[in-house]
C-alpha cells in the first residue's frame, strides 16, 4: 500500500465543499465505528467513514500530560459531569479512544450479559451469541495477555499482593503487538505496539475501498420521513475546531459511532431523538477510585505496561481492580499536600505505584443533552448514596493489596481521612467511614447507555443489532447501546457488538 492508493482526506487537502454517495456512512472512527466501517467495506459496501479529529502520527504525540490532553481530548480533557462532579474524557482523533486508552480488552462476563438479556429483552445477546464476534475481533487485533517482561514492577507488585491474599488476578489482555513497556498508552503509543484503530481497522477499511473524511464534524443526520438518507456537516480545523467547507454524504444507511456522549447530541440536534424519550437518558459510568502506594524501595514506575494486571475477583460485588499509570504530572494532581510537603511527596514518585478500581454503580444515573453548537454535551450525573459502599469496599481492598505487597504507606485520597495511612489497621476506616460523594476523587472514563438497546421500543433506542427502533437505516455502534454498565472495560464489547451490527447491515 502507498499513499496515492487510498481515499483519505485531511484538513489541509479540502479545497471546496464535499459531496459523497455511499451505501453506508459511519460517523466516528473509534472502536465501534472503525470496526463497522472495515467490516462493511469487506462485505463490498461503498463506505464513507467520517471523523471529527485528525490522524496523529508518532511525531504528533506529546508526552506532557496537559498538552497531550489538550490535543487529543474533547474540551481539552477538562470535561466533567454536573451533579456529582466527576471528570470524564472523550477523544477527538482518528481512532477515537483507542488512540489514548490503555488497550484493555475484556469480554463482558457471562453473568452480565445474561442479566442484560433478561432485564432488557435481548434474547440474542448472551455470551455465547457474542463470543464469535469477540473471537473475530480478538484474532484481528492480536489480543493477548501482557507478557511479564514488560509488566514492570508496579504491575507485578499488584499480582504479588493479590497472591498473598488469595485474590485472583491476571495479566491484562490487550490489543497490543510488541509492547516495550513505555507506559505511554494515554499520550499515544510511540512504539506503534498498540493496535489502535488508526493503524489497524481504518487503514484496512481504506484498502478495501472506503473513503475516510478526517477533520469533518457531522452536525446533522438527514432523514426523509422515517428513513435516514445521510449526514451533513463541516470540515473543522484540528485543535481549534474552526469551521470550514461543508460536506454532505448521502447513504442508505447511517451508523452512528460518535461515542455515548455525542451520538445522542447528534440525534437531538437532528430532531431524531425519537418518541421513546430514551435517547440521552440512562447515562451510566464505571466511577473509578484510585489509591497510591509508597514502597520501601524503587518501583521504577516509568517502565511497564500502562495497565498490566487486573483482578476480576470482586466483579459480583460491583468492582474490578487494576493497575494504572499515566503521565506523572496527571497522577501527581492526586497527591495530597501543598508547598514543601507536596515537594517531599513528589520525591516518593520513584517508589510509587497506583492501582484503581472501576465500579458498577447501577443506581447512579444521568443524562446527556446538547450544549452550544458542537457535539460537546452537558452531562448530568449523580452518584447514588446507595452505591457508596461499593466504592468504599473497593478502596479498602486496594489498600489491603498494597500492604500485602509490602507498601510502607498508602495515599487513599479521601477527604476527611488522613492523607497517608501506614497500616492496614489504619486503612480499615475506609470501610467504616461515613463517606459522602464529594469526599472522593472520582474518575469516569467509561460511559454507557445513552442510546441503549432494549427489546421494547418504548424503553430503548436500538434493538440488539444496533438498529434504531424508530428510524429506518439508522444504526448505533458505540457504548451508548449498552443497556447497563458491563462491569469490565468496554472496548472489546463495543467492537464485538459493532462487528455484529455490520453483519446485520450487510445481510
Amino acid at each position: 500500500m502507498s499513499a496515492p492508493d487510498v481515499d483519505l482526506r485531511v484538513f489541509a487537502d479540502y479545497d471546496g465543499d464535499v459531496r459523497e454517495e455511499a451505501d453506508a456512512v459511519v460517523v466516528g472512527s473509534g472502536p465501534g465505528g472503525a470496526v463497522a466501517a472495515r467490516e462493511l467495506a469487506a462485505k463490498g459496501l461503498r463506505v464513507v467513514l467520517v471523523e471529527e479529529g485528525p490522524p496523529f502520527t508518532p511525531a504528533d504525540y506529546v508526552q506532557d500530560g496537559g498538552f497531550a490532553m489538550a490535543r487529543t481530548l474533547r474540551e481539552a480533557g477538562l470535561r466533567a459531569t454536573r451533579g456529582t462532579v466527576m471528570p470524564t474524557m472523550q477523544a477527538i482523533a482518528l481512532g477515537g479512544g483507542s488512540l489514548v486508552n490503555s488497550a484493555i480488552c475484556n469480554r463482558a462476563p457471562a453473568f452480565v450479559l445474561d442479566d442484560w438479556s433478561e432485564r432488557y429483552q435481548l434474547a440474542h445477546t448472551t455470551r455465547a451469541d457474542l463470543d464469535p464476534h469477540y473471537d473475530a475481533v480478538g484474532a484481528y487485533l492480536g489480543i493477548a495477555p501482557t507478557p511479564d517482561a514488560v509488566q514492570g514492577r508496579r504491575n507485578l507488585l499488584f499480582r504479588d499482593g493479590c497472591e498473598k491474599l488469595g485474590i485472583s488476578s491476571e495479566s491484562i489482555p490487550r490489543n497490543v503487538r510488541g509492547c516495550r513497556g513505555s507506559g505511554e498508552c494515554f499520550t499515544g503509543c510511540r512504539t506503534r505496539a498498540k493496535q489502535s484503530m488508526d493503524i489497524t481497522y481504518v487503514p484496512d477499511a481504506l484498502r478495501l475501498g472506503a473513503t475516510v473524511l478526517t477533520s469533518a464534524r457531522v452536525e446533522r443526520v438527514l432523514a426523509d420521513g422515517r428513513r435516514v438518507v445521510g449526514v451533513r456537516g463541516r470540515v473543522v480545523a484540528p485543535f481549534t475546531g474552526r469551521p470550514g467547507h461543508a460536506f454532505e454524504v448521502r447513504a442508505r444507511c447511517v451508523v452512528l459511532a460518535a461515542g455515548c456522549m455525542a451520538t445522542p447530541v447528534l440525534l437531538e440536534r437532528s430532531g431524531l431523538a425519537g418518541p421513546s424519550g430514551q435517547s440521552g437518558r440512562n447515562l451510566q459510568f464505571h466511577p473509578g477510585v484510585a489509591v497510591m502506594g509508597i514502597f520501601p524501595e524503587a518501583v521504577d514506575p516509568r517502565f511497564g505496561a500502562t495497565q498490566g494486571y487486573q483482578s476480576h475477583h470482586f466483579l459480583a460485588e460491583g468492582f474490578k481492580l487494576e493497575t494504572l499509570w499515566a503521565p506523572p504530572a496527571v497522577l501527581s494532581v492526586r497527591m495530597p499536600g501543598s508547598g514543601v510537603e507536596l515537594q517531599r511527596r513528589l520525591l516518593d514518585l520513584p517508589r510509587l505505584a497506583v492501582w484503581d478500581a472501576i465500579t458498577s454503580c447501577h443506581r447512579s444515573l444521568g443524562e446527556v443533552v446538547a450544549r452550544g453548537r458542537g457535539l460537546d454535551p452537558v452531562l448530568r450525573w449523580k452518584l447514588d448514596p446507595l452505591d457508596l459502599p461499593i466504592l468504599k469496599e473497593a478502596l479498602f481492598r486496594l489498600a489491603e493489596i498494597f500492604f500485602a505487597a509490602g507498601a510502607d504507606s498508602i495515599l487513599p485520597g479521601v477527604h476527611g481521612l488522613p492523607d497517608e495511612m501506614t497500616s492496614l489497621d489504619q486503612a480499615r476506616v475506609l470501610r467504616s467511614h461515613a463517606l459522602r460523594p464529594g469526599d472522593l476523587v472520582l474518575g469516569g472514563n467509561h460511559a454507557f447507555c445513552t442510546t441503549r438497546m432494549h427489546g421494547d421500543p418504548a424503553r430503548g433506542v436500538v434493538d440488539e443489532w444496533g438498529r434504531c427502533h424508530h428510524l429506518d437505516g439508522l444504526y448505533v455502534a458505540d457504548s451508548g447501546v449498552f443497556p447497563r454498565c458491563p462491569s469490565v472495560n468496554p472496548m472489546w464489547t463495543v467492537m464485538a457488538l459493532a462487528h455484529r451490527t455490520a453483519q446485520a447491515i450487510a445481510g
Partner: protein
Amino acid sequence: MSGAIGVVAALLVGWIAWRIWGGHPPAPWDAALSRREHAFLAAVAEAVFPPGGPLPRSGVEAGVPGYVDRLVAVSPPRQRRLMRLLFFAIEHSTLLFPGPGVLRGRRRLSAQPLAARIAVLEGWRTSGLFARRLVFASLRALVTLGYFGDGPVQRRLGLEPFAIDSPVCEADLIYPRVGASRGDIALGLGDLTPPSDGTPLCAPGAGAAG
C-alpha cells in the same frame, strides 16, 4: 463641596482599583493571559512549589506561569474562559474572605506574602466545602502540570520520557502530520521498518532513569 466629594470618591475608586488590579509586572508580549493573571500564577506557583524546598526548582523557576499560559492558549474558548474565571475567583477571594490571621488586610492573593498565600491555599485544600476543594484542586492541577513540564524537575525525579525511535508502519504512509497535506508525506514503501519487537525499554531493576 460636591466637587470635593467627587474627587475623594474618584480617588477612593482609583485606590481600590489599584489594590485589586494594579501593580503587576508586564506579561510576555505573546502571552494569552494578562499580566495580572501571570502575576497570580507566579504567586500560586511559588506557594505550591516554594523555593528552597527538597526539589531543586521552585514553581516560578520551573516556568509554571508560562506553561499555563501556553496551555490556556491551545484550549477551546469555553475551557479558556473557565480557567480564567478560576484564576480571577481565587485571586480576589481574599478580598472577601481574608482567611487565616496571617493575612495583611484585604488584598488580592498575589499581593499577600508567601506564608499567607500558603495558608490561604491550604484553607481551600482542606475546606469542608466541596466546591472550595474542587476549585483548589483545579488550580493545583494546572500548576502541577506546569511544574512537571519542566525538564530538570522530570530528570530529578527520574521520570522523563524514554527516548524512542518509532517504527514506520503502513499507516505512516497514509497520514501526514497534523496540519500538513498528504502531499507532504515523504515516506514510501521502502521506508517501512519492522514493527516493535517487544524488547523492553528498561531492563528489570535498572532504575527509573535507566
